[in-house]
């Protein structure tokens, strides 16, 4: 109902506008073309000036209204550098923005048609043109300089001793893997992937180093102040590990692993306090179009202290043991009935296929 109401209003608006537009065309003809033109010109000249003034006020107002909702404290060292670069760029471009917009609308207003005005025949001026080639070039070189300095730092090698975590995207969730005590990720091959057999990454269980790997689909745990290197992959289509609080981002490409490293600076708990938001979590947003569930492809990161991390790690069970419960020393003690043994056998057979 209200839809039709709205459409009716639009139609009415159209009709009224059209009538006014027709009428003013006739009035214009009656008044004489010249007078009509001069009047329109004055009105539009004034409006351009008004647009400049209210536009700049609007920019200021928009900034005041929204600044609390963007860019909380950057939660990684790289993020702080990126924010610094951002502020430098905002300052430089902001100055250019204000000056050029003012010149544009002010000139338009000031030099609007006057019958008596003589235009200044000014077709070129090499010196002026040289200035506005060289000055932007210098300003841009400065920005490039800063930018590349940070960029090479951010994309350089991760420090030794960084925590290594593997993250794999699939439609529409994230899978995390830790290398376990041996600090080596077990081999995997995509043709071994099988959701039915609980091998979402296609890990080769024959590889010894895979047997202590920890696979988890709930959350990625990271340690405060400890650099972390993510090894990023995808199972099906391109995804992207987007970490807006850390200001980091990297595509997850099937067939071509990528990496990224950073150092978290605040635990999740600290961020809850700093942002005054008890619901705060570090979210991983998928930032590359990956299908119909793209907008809901969320991952979680918990940043904790080293002690909390150690506690959490101690509670994790290698995936291998979950897939082959009979290999689990904790289970071996218990009496295994014939039935479970048989079940395990079938599982094993399936896995070795």
């Amino acid at each position, binding site marked *: 109902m209200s839809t039709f109401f709205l459409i009716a209003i639009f139609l009415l608006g159209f009709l009224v506008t059209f009538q006014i537009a027709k009428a003013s065309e006739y009035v214009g003809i009656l008044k004489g073309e010249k007078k009509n033109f001069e009047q329109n010109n004055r009105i539009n000249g004034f409006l351009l000036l008004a647009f400049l003034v209210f536009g700049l006020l609007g920019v200021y107002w928009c900034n005041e209204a929204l600044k609390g909702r963007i860019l909380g404290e950057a939660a990684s060292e790289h993020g702080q550098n990126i924010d610094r670069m951002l502020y430098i*760029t905002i300052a430089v471009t902001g100055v250019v923005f204000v000056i050029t917009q003012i010149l544009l609308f002010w000139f338009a207003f000031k030099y609007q048609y006057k019958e008596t005005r003589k*235009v200044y*025949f000014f077709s070129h001026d090499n010196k002026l043109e040289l200035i506005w080639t060289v000055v932007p070039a210098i300003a841009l070189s400065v920005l490039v300089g800063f930018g590349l300095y940070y960029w090479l730092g951010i994309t350089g090698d991760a420090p030794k001793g960084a925590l290594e975590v593997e993250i794999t995207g699939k439609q529409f969730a994230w899978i995390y893997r830790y290398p376990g005590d041996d600090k080596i990720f077990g081999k995997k091959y995509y043709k071994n992937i099988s959701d039915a057999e609980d091998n979402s990454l*296609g890990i080769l269980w024959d590889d010894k180093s895979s047997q202590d790997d920890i696979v988890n689909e709930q959350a990625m745990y990271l340690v405060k102040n400890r650099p972390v290197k993510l090894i990023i992959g995808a199972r099906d289509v391109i995804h992207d590990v987007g970490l807006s609080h850390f200001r980091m981002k990297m595509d997850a490409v099937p067939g071509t692993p990528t990496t990224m490293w950073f150092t978290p600076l605040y635990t999740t708990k600290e961020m809850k306090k700093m942002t005054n938001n008890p619901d705060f979590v570090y979210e991983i947003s998928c930032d590359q179009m990956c299908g119909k569930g*793209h*907008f809901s492809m969320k991952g979680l990161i918990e940043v904790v202290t080293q002690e909390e991390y150690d506690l959490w790690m101690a509670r994790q069970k290698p995936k291998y043991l979950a897939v082959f419960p009979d290999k689990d020393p904790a289970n071996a003690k218990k009496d295994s009935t014939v039935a479970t043994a048989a079940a395990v056998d079938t599982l094993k057979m399936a896995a070795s296929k």
Partner: protein
Amino acid sequence: MSNEAILQKPADAVVTHGDHREGNGHSEHHHKETFISKYVFSMDHKMIAKQFLITGIIWAIIGGLFSVLFRLQLGYPNDSFPILETLLGKWAKGGKIQPEFYYALVTMHGTVLVFFVLTAGLSGTFANFLIPLQIGARDMASPFMNMLSYWFFWAASVVMISSLFVETGPASGGWTSYPPLSALGGASEGSKTGMDLWLISMALFVVSSLLGGLNYISTILNMRTKGMSMTRVPLTIWALFFTAVLGVLSFPVLLSGFILLLFDRHGGTSFYLSDIYLASTQQALPNEGGSAILYQHLFWFLGHPEVYIILLPAMGMVSEIMSVNSRKPIFGYMAMIGSLFAITILAFLVWAHHMFVSGLNPFLGSVFVLLTLLIAVPSAIKVFNWLTTLWRGNIRFTPAMLFSIGFVSLFISGGLTGIFLGNSTLDIHLHDTYFVVAHFHIVMGVASFFGLFAGVYHWFPKMYGRYLNNTMAYLHFWVTLIGAYLIFWPMHYEGLAGMPRRYMDFSQWVSFNQFGDLNRFISIVSIIVFAVQLLFVFNFFYSIFKGRRVTTSNPWDSNTLEWTTPIRPGHGNWPGEIPEVHRWPYDYGKDGREFIPQTEPVGAQETAH
């Protein structure tokens, strides 16, 4: 200039070109001109231009309507609109837009506006209309190819439209259609038949654009009238020339990328595919060794030049219109050409700035940072030259002039955010967020639309012999300018917060749900702005038939050649001889004279410029 030698040839070519040279133009139309040959399979560049324009307008309405639909979803993610179910059936079950359909809408919106409206609708219209008229030619080098160019575009349109009606829906992987998503029907409904139709349509489109482009280039190089050296052609022509060069050199690369994608889809090849397991079929695919990133290189090798293909014609028309309405020469004509040239060259060398976080080698990334930010230099030159053109002019705010001023304002705003994105350090955070959406809509989408509108308002009298209604035009301008800023300015802030693009609902995200009210505001403004575009469309069609008649052949007191033709020029443009040109097109306000048409010989006492 050494051009004089070259110029002899085209003059001859024109003679052989038509019997139009003799006699008066009007009496010649009757030679076997039927409705079909005049309005449908026309070979008159002016008619073909109108065909492109009107097809473009229809596409713009469709593409705009798509955006209204998905803005409804973004503004009101938790409401349902029963009317949508009535109209769209299963795509809006229960009055809520379904995810597959949302992504199909976004994809079609992007494809249609980038390619069908702002490439075909813009270049197709103004290159066809203005090149022969402004360089003094009777028609294009090959009117037949020109006609084919339109009809290939038409075929592309039909295929694209039909993809909207297939069972599994149209393509839905974004206008960039990255594989593997776009390669695998098992990964998305839209990657089934819809994607094939999308690829076929785009292939037809590439053919259309190549036929057109080659024609524009050869016409500009070979068919200029006597005296029209390359340093005397209006900047519109220079811009259209570089646009055509960009298209001719980059569209084939896109086509090759699409063909490889078709092979991967149906031929079992592995150009883009490797290591893929599809959950929908619980199967690992046999493909190994391909690179998904290869497609992105091929796509953006066109994709970046494409944004300039869209922008340059607007820049050219704005330069021309600004000079005419400031009653003052364009400032730095040679610098304007030089910067167009620089932009054209650099446009081929920056494509990987769309791929900074795709796993690109960081060193390669830094090279692309340097080249990308270099592009800002010629852009800056253009802005300052436009500003200086206004300075000490005597400005008439015709609707075309207002849209030109709006264009410069938008180009500044959007160009400056390019400096953020071109800096790879910042792009890590801003890539694929609403900041990018804001950037390219302002600098490419809205700005080029402003160029298009400026062109239509300025040359409508030449096209149809009537004026558009001024009141509606002013309303159109002001609502569009204010609306565009209200829609896209706040999106920068959303992007700074990391809010990802191509999300249909943010309410489940702790990090991004703070913008619910802002999204609603943006949606409301976009609906209003869309309605005002319909007002323009109405004005356009109404004025074709009922607009105020043009009574003088040169209504804007302009120097260029198109205004030396009759008010309603026939096929062949000039009833008699093609006029000879004696000067550049920007002698406004020279030696105390309002304007001096290009056809006027240089006087003995005249000062040089």
